[in-house]
C-alpha cells in the first residue's frame, strides 16, 4: 500500500496513543493528586441530617401541678419556595387554602411575609424564620381539613399538614403566671450566629422553637431536650437512598418551680382586687405587682403582675391586633421584676437601718413636725400631720417623714453638705446598696431590672450625661412652650439653668427625698420583697429563685437548686432587731392598722410598712404594702404595689391581708395551717414525684386545681 497511507495510519496510531495517554494522565491527576479534595466534596454531597425536635419538658409548680405542658395539634405550613414556582406566586393556592381553612386570605398573606420586608407587619405576625423553612400559617386545624389538604396535593402544592407538639397551659386554679412562665418563639438569627458553625446534634436549628422570655428562656436548654437525628444518604433528586444513623430524641427535662399554683392564683386575684380598689377610689390603678417569697430561702412562691396577658395566645403565633394590644397595655413585661418604681415609705426600713449604721440612737426621741424648712424649700409630712417628739418605732408606725428628713439632713451635713466630695459617706445609699437595691437580685428570670439608688455618685453621672441638654435648653429658653405658656417656659428655663450650673450637687433636698424613698431611687417590687425578707431572717440577703429542681422525663431527680445567699446585709444586728421589733407595730398601731382590723395579730403578728410614693406630674401616689409574717417567727415576705393606686394602707393593704390569710389558714380570728392554700401548710421540702411514664404525681381532686391534671400532664 502507498507510503502516504502507511504514514497517515501511523499518525492516527500516534494520535490514538496520545489520546489514551491523556486520559491516563488526567485520571491520575484527579484521583491521586487531588483525590482527597474530591472525597470531601463527595462526603458533603450525600449526607443529610433530619432533626426531629424533642418533646419539650413541662413546668411544674411546687406540688407537681403542671403549669405548662404539651398537647398535639395539627399545623398547616406553607413552603414559600414551592409557592413561588406556581403561577402568580401561588395566589390561587392561597385563596383555596384560605377557603378550606376558613380564614381571611390577608391573614395568610401577612403571615407569609418575612419580617422587615416591604409591607410586613411587626413580629410575631410576620415570619421570622428562614426563607427555606415552611411557614406555619394555622394551628389547631381539625383532622378532616388536614386530611383533605393532604389528599389534594395537586391543588395545594407546597402546603402540608403535620402533627406538632405545642404548649398548653392547664392553669390549675386559673393561674396565669404569664410573666414567670414566658413564651416560645422561633429561634432568632442572633442565637444562630452566636453558636457559630456548631456541628453538635443539639445545636439550634432554624426550625427550632426556643423560649423567648421567662422560665421558658432561662431554662431553655433544660426544657428543650436533645433532638432526634436521622442521618440519611440522599441523591441529587432529594430521594433518600438509605439511612446511615438514627438517634432517638431525648425529651426535655421537667422544671419544678417553687411557685404554688393555688397561692399564685390567690395572689393574682388579690392584685386584681387591689387594682379595682384603687379604681373605686377614682385612681387609674394603671399597673401593679405582688410578690411572695420564703424568707429563709429566697424562693419565690408567687409573683404576679398587672396587667397581664393570656400565655396561650402565643401558641401558633398571635394576631396583629393581639400583639398591638399587648404593646399598648404594656402587659408583656413583668412589673414584679422588670418594673422600677419609687419605693416611698417602704424605704424607711432601709433608712432606719442606715441610721443604726451611722450610730443614731434607735431608741431615742425625734421631733415629728408638720414641715421642715431647709434653705428656701419646705418639706412636708404626709397630709401635713404633726406628731411632736416621738420614738423611731413610732415614726415607722405612723410613717413620719420629718423624722427621717432630720436624720438625713444630719448625715448630709456630716458628710460635708453641698460641697462634699463624690465619695463622701452616705449611710442611706450604702445601706440600700447592701440590701441589694440598685442591682439585679439575680432571680432566675431573664430581663430583670436593677433599679437605682439615689446618691452623690448617681447625681454626678446623671449630670454629666444630661448637662449639655440642660445648658442648651437654658440658653434657648423653651421657645416652643413660650408661645403658649410663657410662665411655664420661665419655670423650665430657670430649672434647667440651675441644673446646668450645679446639677451635679447632692443637695439637702436630694438627701431628704432619698431618705423617704422619693427622688431618684427606684426599686422593683421583687427587690423590696427581698429587703423585707432579709430584715425578717435577721440580715441575710438571698438571691430569689423560681426554679427548685429538675426532674427527667423518666422521673429521676436531675438537679435540686439550693438557696443562694447574696450577702449578709452590712447592718448592725441590733438595727435589724430594732426593725423586727418595730415593724409589727405598723399593723397594730400604725398606718397598717386599718386593713388589719380584726386580723388575729396576737396569734399571727404581721410586720409591715406602708408606702404612698409620690410621682412626678399630677398622678396619684404609688400604693405600697411590704410585710412579712409571722413577725415573731418569719416565714414569708409579701409585697404588693399598685401605681396610681393611692395609699398603701387603703389599696394594697387589704389584699396583702387576704394573701396572708390564705397562706396561714386564717379564718375570722382562728389560725389553722390545715386551711392554708399550701398543702400541709408550708412549701413541700422535696421535689414532687414524677412517674417513670413521665406523669407527675399531682395532688388529687380539688387540690389539683384542674379537672384532669393527669391528662394535661402527660406528654404526647
Amino acid at each position, binding site marked *: 500500500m502507498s507510503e502516504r497511507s502507511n504514514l497517515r*495510519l501511523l499518525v492516527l496510531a500516534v494520535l490514538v496513543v496520545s*489520546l489514551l495517554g*491523556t*486520559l491516563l494522565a488526567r485520571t491520575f491527576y*484527579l*484521583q*491521586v493528586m487531588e483525590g482527597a479534595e474530591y472525597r470531601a466534596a*463527595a462526603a458533603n*454531597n450525600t449526607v443529610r441530617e433530619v432533626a426531629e425536635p424533642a418533646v419539650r419538658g413541662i413546668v411544674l409548680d411546687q406540688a407537681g401541678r403542671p403549669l405548662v405542658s404539651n398537647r398535639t395539634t395539627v399545623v398547616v405550613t406553607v413552603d414559600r419556595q414551592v409557592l413561588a414556582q406556581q403561577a402568580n406566586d401561588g395566589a390561587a393556592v392561597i385563596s383555596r387554602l384560605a377557603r378550606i381553612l376558613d380564614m381571611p386570605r390577608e391573614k395568610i398573606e401577612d403571615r407569609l411575609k418575612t419580617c422587615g420586608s416591604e409591607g410586613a407587619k411587626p413580629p410575631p405576625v410576620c415570619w421570622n424564620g428562614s426563607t427555606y423553612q415552611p411557614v406555619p400559617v394555622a394551628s389547631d386545624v381539625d383532622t378532616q381539613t388536614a386530611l383533605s389538604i393532604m389528599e389534594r396535593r395537586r391543588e395545594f402544592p407546597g402546603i402540608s399538614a403535620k402533627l406538632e407538639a405545642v404548649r398548653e397551659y392547664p392553669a390549675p386554679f386559673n393561674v396565669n403566671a404569664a410573666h414567670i412562665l414566658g413564651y416560645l418563639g422561633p429561634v432568632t438569627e442572633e442565637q444562630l450566629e452566636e453558636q457559630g458553625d456548631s456541628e453538635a446534634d443539639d445545636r439550634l436549628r432554624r426550625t427550632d422553637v426556643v423560649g423567648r422570655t421567662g422560665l421558658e428562656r432561662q431554662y431553655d436548654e433544660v426544657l428543650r431536650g436533645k433532638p432526634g437525628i436521622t442521618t440519611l444518604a440522599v441523591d441529587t433528586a432529594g430521594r433518600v*437512598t438509605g439511612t446511615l444513623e438514627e438517634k432517638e430524641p431525648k425529651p426535655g427535662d421537667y422544671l419544678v418551680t417553687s411557685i404554688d399554683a393555688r397561692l399564685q392564683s390567690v395572689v393574682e386575684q388579690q392584685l386584681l382586687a387591689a387594682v379595682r380598689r384603687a379604681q373605686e377610689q377614682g385612681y387609674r390603678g394603671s399597673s401593679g405587682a405582688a410578690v411572695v417569697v420564703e424568707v429563709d430561702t429566697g424562693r419565690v412562691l408567687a409573683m404576679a403582675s398587672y396587667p397581664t396577658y393570656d400565655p396561650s395566645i402565643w401558641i401558633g403565633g398571635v394576631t396583629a391586633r393581639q400583639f398591638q394590644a399587648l404593646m399598648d397595655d404594656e402587659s408583656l413585661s413583668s412589673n414584679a421584676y422588670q418594673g422600677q418604681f419609687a419605693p416611698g415609705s417602704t424605704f424607711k426600713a432601709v433608712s432606719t437601718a442606715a441610721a443604726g449604721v451611722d450610730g443614731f440612737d434607735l431608741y431615742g426621741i425625734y421631733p415629728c413636725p408638720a414641715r421642715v424648712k431647709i434653705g428656701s424649700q419646705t418639706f412636708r409630712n404626709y397630709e401635713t400631720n404633726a406628731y411632736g417628739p416621738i420614738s423611731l418605732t413610732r415614726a415607722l408606725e405612723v410613717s413620719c417623714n420629718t423624722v427621717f428628713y432630720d436624720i438625713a439632713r444630719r448625715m448630709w451635713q456630716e458628710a460635708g453638705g453641698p460641697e462634699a466630695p463624690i465619695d463622701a459617706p452616705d449611710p442611706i445609699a450604702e445601706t440600700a446598696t447592701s440590701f441589694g437595691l440598685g442591682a439585679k437580685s439575680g432571680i432566675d428570670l431573664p430581663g430583670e431590672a436593677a433599679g437605682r439608688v439615689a446618691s452623690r455618685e448617681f447625681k454626678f453621672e446623671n449630670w454629666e450625661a444630661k448637662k449639655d441638654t440642660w445648658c442648651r435648653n437654658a440658653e434657648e429658653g423653651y421657645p416652643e412652650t413660650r408661645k403658649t405658656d410663657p410662665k411655664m417656659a420661665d419655670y423650665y428655663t430657670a430649672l434647667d439653668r440651675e441644673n446646668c450650673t450645679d446639677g451635679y450637687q447632692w443637695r439637702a433636698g436630694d438627701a431628704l427625698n432619698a431618705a423617704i424613698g422619693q427622688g431618684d431611687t427606684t426599686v422593683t417590687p421583687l427587690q423590696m420583697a427581698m429587703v423585707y425578707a432579709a430584715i425578717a431572717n435577721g440580715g441575710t440577703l438571698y438571691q430569689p429563685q423560681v426554679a427548685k429542681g429538675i426532674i427527667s422525663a423518666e422521673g429521676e431527680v436531675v438537679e435540686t437548686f439550693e438557696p443562694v445567699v447574696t450577702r449578709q446585709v452590712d447592718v448592725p444586728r441590733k438595727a435589724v432587731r430594732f426593725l423586727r421589733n418595730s415593724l409589727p407595730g405598723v399593723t397594730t398601731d400604725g398606718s397598717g392598722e386599718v386593713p388589719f382590723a380584726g386580723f388575729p395579730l396576737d396569734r399571727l403578728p404581721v410586720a409591715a410598712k406602708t408606702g404612698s410614693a409620690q410621682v412626678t406630674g399630677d398622678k396619684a401616689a404609688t400604693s405600697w404594702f411590704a410585710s412579712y409574717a409571722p413577725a415573731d417567727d418569719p416565714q414569708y415576705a409579701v409585697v404588693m404595689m399598685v401605681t396610681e393606686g393611692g395609699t398603701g394602707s387603703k389599696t394594697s393593704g387589704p389584699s396583702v391581708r387576704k394573701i396572708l390569710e390564705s397562706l396561714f389558714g386564717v379564718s375570722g380570728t382562728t389560725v389553722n395551717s390545715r386551711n392554708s392554700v399550701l398543702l400541709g401548710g408550708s412549701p413541700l421540702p422535696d421535689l414532687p414525684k414524677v412517674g417513670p411514664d413521665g406523669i407527675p404525681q399531682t395532688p388529687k381532686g380539688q387540690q389539683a386545681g384542674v379537672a384532669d391534671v393527669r391528662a394535661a400532664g402527660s406528654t404526647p
Partner: protein
Amino acid sequence: MSGLLTTDPAVRTLTRQKGYWRDLDWVLLLAALTITIFGSMLVWSASRADMASDSDPQSYLKRHVINIVIGIALGWFASRLDYRWLRAYTPIIYGASIVLLMLPFVPGLGTTIAGARAWIDLPGGMTIQPSEFAKVAVILMMAVLLSEKRDIESEPRDRDVLLSLGVAVLPILIILVQNDTGTVLILGSVALSVIAVSGARTRWVIGLITGAIVGVLIAVQLGLLKEYQVQRLTSFINPGEDVSSAAYNANQARIAVGGGGWSGYGLFEGPQTQGKFVPVNESDFIFTVVGEELGFIGSAVLILLMGVILWRAVVIAFRADDMYGRLVATGIVAWLAFQTFENVGMSLGIMPITGIPLPLVSAGGTSMMATWIAVGLLQNVRLHAVRAGV
C-alpha cells in the same frame, strides 16, 4: 444457530475454511471480552441504585447480558462474512441504515432521550439507537468507495473522495437534526481518518480539517446550535462557577472520579455512584463508576484494555492485504478511539458533555451490538489478510 444458518442463503457467503479459530486475533478477542465483562460489573453497580426496592435490582444487568450475547453473535457473524458479499451488499446496508436513521422522526416510533431524538421505540420497553449502526454502515460504505477500481498504490480520485464525503455527511446531517452532537463529532473524525488513510491528496485532508473547524465556529456564531447544546459543550471549561445542570453534571462526575483515589471505595460502595449524583452513570458517565469504586487502578486497567483493543486494531489495519480492509479497520480505530476519548474525557472534565456511550462498557444494546460487529469486522479483515498470506 447453525440450523438456522444452513437454511439461510446467507450461509453460503460465510467462509468455511479451516483455521478460523487458529487465525483469530485472540488478544483482541480476549481484551474485548474482558472489557465487556468489566463493563457489566460497572453497569450493575450503577443501575442497582436506580431500581426501586420492589423491583428486581438485577433486571438492568440481565438486559445488559442479553445485549452482550446478541452482540457477540453478531460479531461472530461479521467475522465470517465473505468480503465480496460484504462489498456487494454494502450499499444496501448503508441505505437501510439511513432509513433506520430517519425512523425516530416518525411519530409514535421516536423517543427523545436527554434532548436527542435519536431512539426508536420497540415493543417491550426496548429502544434502539440507529446512529450506532450508521457508524458501521458509513465506515463500510466509505471503504468501498475509496478502495474501488484502482491500483493499490494510487491515490483515490477526487470524485471518489467527494462521494465518500457525501456518504458521511448525509447521516451527519440527520443526526445533527436529532441533536446527537456526540455522534456527529465521532462520525466526522471517522470520515476524516478514513479519507486520510485512503491516501487522498493532502489538500483534501487539510481542507477537511479546516472545514470542520470553520463549520463548528460558524454553527456556534450563527446560533445553529441550540443554546443548551452550546452550554453542554462549553460547561466543561469552568464547571465550578456554573450552576446550570450541564455544569452540575460535569462537577458531580469529577467529584465521583476524583473521590476514588488510588483504589476506590470498592464495588457497590461509591457514594456518588450509589447516591445517583452522577446522571446516566450506567451509560454516558459509566467511567465515573470505575473511577469512584475501583479508583485509579481500575480506571487504568479499563483504559489499558481499550488501549490493547486499539493496538490490535491498528496492527490489523497495517497488515490488511487490501485498501478495503485497511479502511474498514482504520474507520473502526478512529471510531473507538474518539468515542472512548470523548466519553472518558467528559467524566474527567476535559471534554464537552455529549450523550455517547463508552464502547463495550456502557449499558445500551445498540452500542454493544455495533461495537461487537466492529470487533467481528476487525477479525474478518485479519482473517482475510492471514489467508492472503500477507
